[in-house]
């Protein structure tokens, strides 16, 4: 009788629940309406004794589906961790008593609120299943690292150190990538501890770049296989079972299987030919910071010679932000973040060789990130490098010397200086494949102009790096300025292709030290992804979730919404053009479920029913009761915790609100909204995360997809002859503690103004 469902409910009366609410009444709702006869109360359910009460029922085979009516599902997760049963939780503490004022006049509505949460939890649990692994899992510990620069090498070394075999594929014929030609590197360490700030002794100096040592380490590692002159010509599969074709210039192709992938393709130096104003290309004595490294390496500590006539450089000017931080066409709009310290270092090459060399750095803002940055700046100043706050406008070559025209920004005057050599501090351009959505942008463009612009972008798209055979395109999606997307603060290495992590300057401009740190982080994530895939468990942010989407083939109309909307490109198409879910690529956001117009997609522990039935379970007082019902669907990552925190902070919530957490606003099915309106809800508040460029959505595009889908809700409302104000979508951050509650209260006020819904049956 393994399949027989045995329901059990547990009501906690601790934390003030028992004092504020009528527990007998709750129990009666659970047994009579929720139809859970096996219902127990405990005065502190999260205590060892309380937990044992539940555990014993489960172990005795008396409970396969349980309801815990206590605190928020976000609280006491360790105590209430019963992974072998289906569980729903009624949020009586944060969700009801902490959000409601005490006092007799509030008692009735507060109790009704609690009763409803019991009904909802009972309804939900009936449709929950215990997730079982799909059997699709495999453990493959081998990682693929794409990119032979410092980032890629670090990633490979870190993986090997952790015992994970690596294939390192480099496009070039040698390791080192863009960093291979460095003469020295910006120091990694700040001034020694205990050196008083003001005395400026023992400041960090340029140091050995360490590339050769890294290469030697790689060559010595038995776990690392290096492929030089290599391209990835095809990548298929999913975390745990990626297959990649690695083709080398000589024509050979090997196919290897991988658990996870790190893309560490670094950057390409900016093309300075776009800077004619600085005479680049007109005279060989104007060089980029990348070219200067080669000159310095050739000089190897001797005097640096200028390229035109081999004369020793006696004066040099560095122009910071060359072609960067500028909105001019062809310029990079961003700061590459590494070129200030790079110029300090290079200026010190000249000073170290000849202290008399006139060395000027023309900067607007000198930005020196990293622990050593500020110390290194002082180090450069101590070496008598002149730092002039000025903006260069032009370089002219005249009579065997160069004239740099600039505006001195402190003295506010246009002036000029002479130099034997000019170094342009140019930036980093991410070394990425084509944006997978570039083709889609052409298809989706509304006007001809937009189409033309989108097509143009597609034409200049770089060749693919990963050649993914995903339905959604060959490479990692990009966010801004062509960088592979990643959330800078919350989840930096996650891309929208699960199990493929971006490390280093490919995701944002950075210096070598940061790239190394980045590689360590991304490699850790890649290892996790491989291990999670082996367990059938979701990756960030639903790590540990064993459920995965499945679909009822008979109902599917092959509309392809799911394959298009999945933010992670998890869904391919099979030969019969049905969606083909790749479990370990899936992040369990439910966006596909929300997208599916015929509602055939579901998870074992989250489905159209698990939420839909909660919505239906709420007791609906009639139109004349003056007790409206407001449904709030709140993202479990941000809005729901914000409401929990509002409760802790003593905010107040309308007693007419019923809050249901959803995995992502992207998982919201329009059917929930229509059903709710049809069954008499007076207002609906949808709370998801911030979307688009500055997104906070844990599923990157889920919230944006939802917004698009929900933009059509107005039609539904009009069809029903209801006011459009009754459904509202908001972006709520986890820090919006006051606001989250306020938005719901505002809806209550709106309902009071426009009146109750006439659909109460």
């Amino acid at each position, binding site marked *: 009788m393994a399949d027989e469902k045995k329901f059990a409910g547990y009501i906690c009366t601790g934390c003030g629940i028992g004092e504020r609410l009528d527990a007998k009444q709750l129990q009666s709702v659970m047994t009579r309406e929720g139809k859970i006869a096996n219902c127990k109360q405990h005065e502190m359910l999260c205590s060892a004794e309380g937990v044992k009460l539940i555990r014993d029922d489960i172990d005795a085979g008396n409970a396969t589906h349980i309801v815990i009516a206590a605190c928020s599902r976000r609280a006491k997760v360790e105590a209430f961790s019963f992974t072998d049963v289906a569980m729903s939780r009624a949020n009586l503490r944060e969700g009801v008593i902490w959000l409601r004022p005490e006092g007799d006049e509030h008692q009735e509505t507060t109790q009704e609120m609690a009763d409803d949460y019991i009904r909802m939890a009972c309804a939900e649990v009936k449709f929950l299943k215990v997730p079982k692994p799909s059997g699709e899992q495999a453990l493959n510990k081998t990682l693929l690292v794409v990119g032979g620069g410092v980032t890629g090498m670090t990633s490979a070394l870190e993986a090997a150190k952790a015992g994970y075999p690596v294939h390192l594929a480099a496009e070039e014929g040698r390791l080192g990538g863009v960093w291979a030609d460095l003469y020295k590197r910006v120091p990694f360490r700040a001034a020694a501890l205990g050196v008083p*700030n*003001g005395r*400026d002794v023992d400041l960090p100096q340029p140091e050995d770049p360490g590339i050769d040592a890294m290469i030697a380490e790689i060559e010595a590692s038995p776990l690392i296989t290096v492929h030089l002159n290599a391209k990835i010509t095809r990548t298929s599969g999913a975390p745990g079972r990626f297959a990649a074709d690695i083709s080398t210039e000589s024509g050979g192709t090997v196919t290897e299987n991988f658990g996870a992938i790190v893309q560490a393709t670094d950057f390409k130096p900016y093309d300075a030919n776009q800077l004619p104003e600085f005479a680049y290309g007109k005279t060989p004595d104007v060089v980029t910071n990348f070219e200067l490294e080669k000159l310095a390496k050739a000089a190897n500590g001797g005097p640096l010679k200028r390229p035109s006539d081999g004369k020793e450089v006696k004066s040099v000017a560095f122009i910071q932000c060359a072609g960067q931080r500028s909105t001019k066409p062809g310029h990079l709009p961003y700061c590459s973040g590494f070129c200030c310290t790079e110029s300090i270092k290079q200026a010190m090459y000249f000073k170290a060789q000849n202290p008399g060399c006139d060395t000027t750095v023309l900067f607007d803002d*000198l930005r020196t990130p990293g622990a050593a940055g500020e110390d290194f*700046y*002082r180090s450069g*100043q*101590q070496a*008598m490098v*002149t*730092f*002039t*706050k000025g903006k260069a406008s032009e370089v002219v070559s005249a009579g065997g010397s160069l004239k740099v025209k600039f505006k*001195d920004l*402190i*003295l506010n005057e246009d*002036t000029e200086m002479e130099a034997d050599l000019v170094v342009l501090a140019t930036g980093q351009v991410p070394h990425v494949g084509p944006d997978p959505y570039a083709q889609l942008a052409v298809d989706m463009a509304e006007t001809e102009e937009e189409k033309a612009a989108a097509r143009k972008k597609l034409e200049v798209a770089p060749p693919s790096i990963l050649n993914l055979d995903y339905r959604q395109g060959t490479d990692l999606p990009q966010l801004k300025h062509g960088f592979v997307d990643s959330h800078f603060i919350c989840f930096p290495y996650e891309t929208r292709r699960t199990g493929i992590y971006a490390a280093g300057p490919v995701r944002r401009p950075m210096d070598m030290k940061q790239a190394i740190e980045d590689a360590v982080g991304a490699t850790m994530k890649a290892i996790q992804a491989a291990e999670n895939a082996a367990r059938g468990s979701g990756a960030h942010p639903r790590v540990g979730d064993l459920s995965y989407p499945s679909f009822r083939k008979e109902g599917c109309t092959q509309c392809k919404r799911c394959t298009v909307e999945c933010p992670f490109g998890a869904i391919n198409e099979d030969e019969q053009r049905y969606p083909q879910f790749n479990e370990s690529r899936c992040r369990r956001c439910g966006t596909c479920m929300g997208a599916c117009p015929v509602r055939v997609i579901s998870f074992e522990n989250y489905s159209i029913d698990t939420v839909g039935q909660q919505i239906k379970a709420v007791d609906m007082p009639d139109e004349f009761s003056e007790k409206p019902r407001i449904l709030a669907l709140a993202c479990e990552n941000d809005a729901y915790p914000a409401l929990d925190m509002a409760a802790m902070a003593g905010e107040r919530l309308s007693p007419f609100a019923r809050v249901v957490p959803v995995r992502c606003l992207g998982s919201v099915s329009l059917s929930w909204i229509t059903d709710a309106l049809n069954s008499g809800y007076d207002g609906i508040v949808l709370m998801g995360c911030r979307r688009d460029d500055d997104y906070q959505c844990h599923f990157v595009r889920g919230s944006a997809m939802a917004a698009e889908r929900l933009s059509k809700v107005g039609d539904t409302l009009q069809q029903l002859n209801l006011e459009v104000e009754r459904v509202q979508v908001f972006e709520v951050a986890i820090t919006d503690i006051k606001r989250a509650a306020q938005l719901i209260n505002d809806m209550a006020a709106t309902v009071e103004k426009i009146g109750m819904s006439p659909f109460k049956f």
Partner: protein
Amino acid sequence: MSTNQAMVEKYRNNFLKEVEANVEEGEWVKMCMQCGVCSGSCPLGKFWDHPPQEIFMMIRAGKRDEVLTSSSMWMCTSCYNCIVRCPRELPITHIMHGLAHYAKRLGLVPQNQPTAKFAQLFWDNLMKKGRVNELKLGMALYFMNGFGEGVKVAMKNQKLGMNMMKTGRMNPMEILGGHAVKDLGGFHKVMKKAQELEDARIAKHGA
């Protein structure tokens, strides 16, 4: 050749080096990061031709004459606001005095710069008796800008003078020479030695 010309010759278009070698705490100038906090902190900043940040920039830009003939560093009241706030911990106040002193040595102080004049009066007064003669210093100060002006200022400050006399802070008899420190000869010896040391230091760096 004047000292000034000698210095111009010696440091040919590297004013920063000249400052490093000759100005008290001058080696700090290169460490300024141009944040402007000092200029923003100076209570008198708005009366200056060039607030400290600008002075440091001008030194690096080799604007020798403009810096040394500027009245800016003479405006510093030693309130130390800038020093306290400078994130780079530059001894700005000291550098200002150092610059003023160097300009004085080179004979580049702007004519009629009141602070410079007062400094000279104070110095001369102090040197005579080894202590400051308040009465004489006050008088000299009043008449700094001519006799008529002096009388006016003196009249205006009459009450203050009376009070100082009453409380014994000022003795009218001091006008007759005034009393000296105990060992005036010794004092002069000390000063002479100091001058010698200073000259030796200058000789080492300068002309």
